[in-house]
């Protein structure tokens, strides 16, 4: 069993949540009996935003609870979507009467559990809507699959929908802003080393020392392609190549660029990747309006990264720049 800084695999999520709220006692609180982090000042007189998913993606999602972003984050077990009753409690707690938007990553379990919670809330007369983020270009969207996964691009949805809600928009308008991000955001990830969940003795997949996985998701599931390890620049070229061929970018377009570490990669390597990403975009005539390099949506201690591009227009630029107390997204 790999060494980990934990007490008991059964308690990792609840102990983590307790630690998160202790770190920001004036801003956050945990709901009794549920692994839900909410803003201490909720409910507020605005559309409320609830997101969540499996644990193991820190700082997602509890790290994005705060002014200008989420009102509540629901944490499931490690890599397992939260249950509908916990999501329902979160909805009830943050609903200030103007409705609640659920931001769901496109993973089968997440979608089902959030939809069940939405049904429960609607039955109680709460106005609820949801959006499903599906930014991962590594998996095909076709009639025959459940579609693309929702990964790091979700953070841009939190930021922009959060800014729209903070500006006093109605639920339908906040949902529309979230959908605008979803249709303009694309991500692809890769791994050098797999991750190991606290309760399992084996890594989630096996890689030889000279191999890497392209097109991984964020739950330790293997990628879509295994290759020999390449240099950083070549990896960036591959990830950005897939993204740029998936969405129509024109000369002069402006983007937000996110280079996201998967939990086990030093910032040095992320910055090396970021350098190349700028070169590639510059060559294409694409302007980086705002750049984010850090860990935003991780996969425990997986080594690797994902690159996300969000194509911007004036509205998205303003909402991206709107104030938030989440340092990572300032």
């Amino acid at each position, binding site marked *: 069993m790999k060494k980990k800084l934990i007490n008991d695999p059964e308690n990792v999520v609840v102990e983590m949540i307790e630690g998160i709220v202790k770190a920001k006692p004036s801003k956050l609180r945990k709901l009794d009996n549920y692994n839900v982090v909410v803003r201490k000042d909720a409910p507020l007189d605005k559309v409320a935003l609830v997101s969540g998913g499996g644990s193991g993606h820190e700082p997602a999602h509890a790290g994005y609870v705060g002014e200008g972003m989420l009102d509540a984050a629901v944490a499931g077990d490690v890599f397992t979507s939260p249950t509908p009753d916990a999501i329902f409690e979160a909805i009830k707690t943050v609903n200030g009467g103007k409705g609640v938007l659920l931001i769901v990553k496109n993973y089968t*379990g997440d979608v089902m559990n959030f939809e069940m919670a939405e049904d429960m809330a609607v039955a109680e007369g709460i106005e609820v809507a949801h959006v499903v983020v599906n930014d991962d270009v590594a998996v095909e969207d076709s009639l025959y699959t459940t579609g693309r996964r929702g990964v790091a691009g979700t953070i841009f949805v939190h930021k922009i929908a959060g800014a729209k809600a903070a500006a006093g928009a109605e639920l339908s308008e906040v949902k529309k802003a979230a959908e605008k991000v979803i249709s303009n955001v694309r991500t692809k990830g890769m791994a050098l080393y797999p991750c190991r969940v606290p309760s399992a003795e084996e890594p989630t997949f096996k890689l030889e020392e000279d191999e890497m996985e392209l097109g991984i998701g964020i739950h330790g599931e293997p990628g879509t392609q295994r290759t020999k390890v390449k240099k950083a620049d070549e990896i960036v070229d591959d990830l950005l190549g897939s993204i740029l061929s998936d969405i129509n970018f024109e000369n002069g377009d402006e983007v937000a660029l996110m280079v996201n570490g998967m939990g086990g990669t030093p910032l040095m390597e992320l910055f090396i990747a970021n350098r190349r990403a700028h070169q590639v975009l510059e060559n294409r005539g694409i302007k980086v309006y705002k750049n984010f390099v850090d860990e935003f949506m991780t996969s425990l201690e997986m080594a690797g990264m994902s690159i996300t591009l969000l194509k911007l227009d004036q509205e998205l630029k303003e909402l991206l720049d709107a104030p938030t107390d989440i340092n990572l997204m300032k």
Partner: protein
Amino acid sequence: MSEKIKVTSEKIKDIFIKIADVLIENKNYLTELDAAIGDADHGINMARGFKKVKEKIEDDSFKNNSDLVKTVAMTLISTVGGASGPLYGTAFLNISKIIPDSDFDIDSFIKIGETVIEGIQKLGKAQRGEKTMLDTIIPAVNALRESKVKGLSLERALEECKKAAEEGMKATIPLLATKGRASYLGERSKGHQDPGATSSYLIIKVIVDELISEME
């Protein structure tokens, strides 16, 4: 065929406790299957959910079968998480709405199977052949229907149901996953037995074995 068997709440409770034991026992096996094509938590999630089911029903008494099965369903929905929680939860919730209180015949079992399929398909939007739990459940229910047409005894019909479930589970090995998390692997999902189809088989096996032991 007009054979009937009496299945009381006490017996159903025994069956669920046995299911829980079998899933807890197979926690690592299911997790290994899931590690190959999913995210290595199916065994952990099922064991967690059914452990809670066991705790919940062991010392309680229930008004009727429906009440008991509904408790199981709600416990699974609120503890399993992932996709299996809502899928199995909905399946048992549907069963709780139609489960007879005393006498079961072949039609009762067919009806139970059909309501399970309906619930899972509504939520998961899957068909047979997509490498999911339905690849175990649909053939199992078809075997019950065929046994009825052939006029087999209830015991034989249940045996056929178990056999078809096992074959269905094994038949998921070469399939390409197009639903659930395994679908993200595309071609690489081939060559592995589906963990959801496996847990469904384990559940069906316990139910059939327990019912047959009751008939003897």
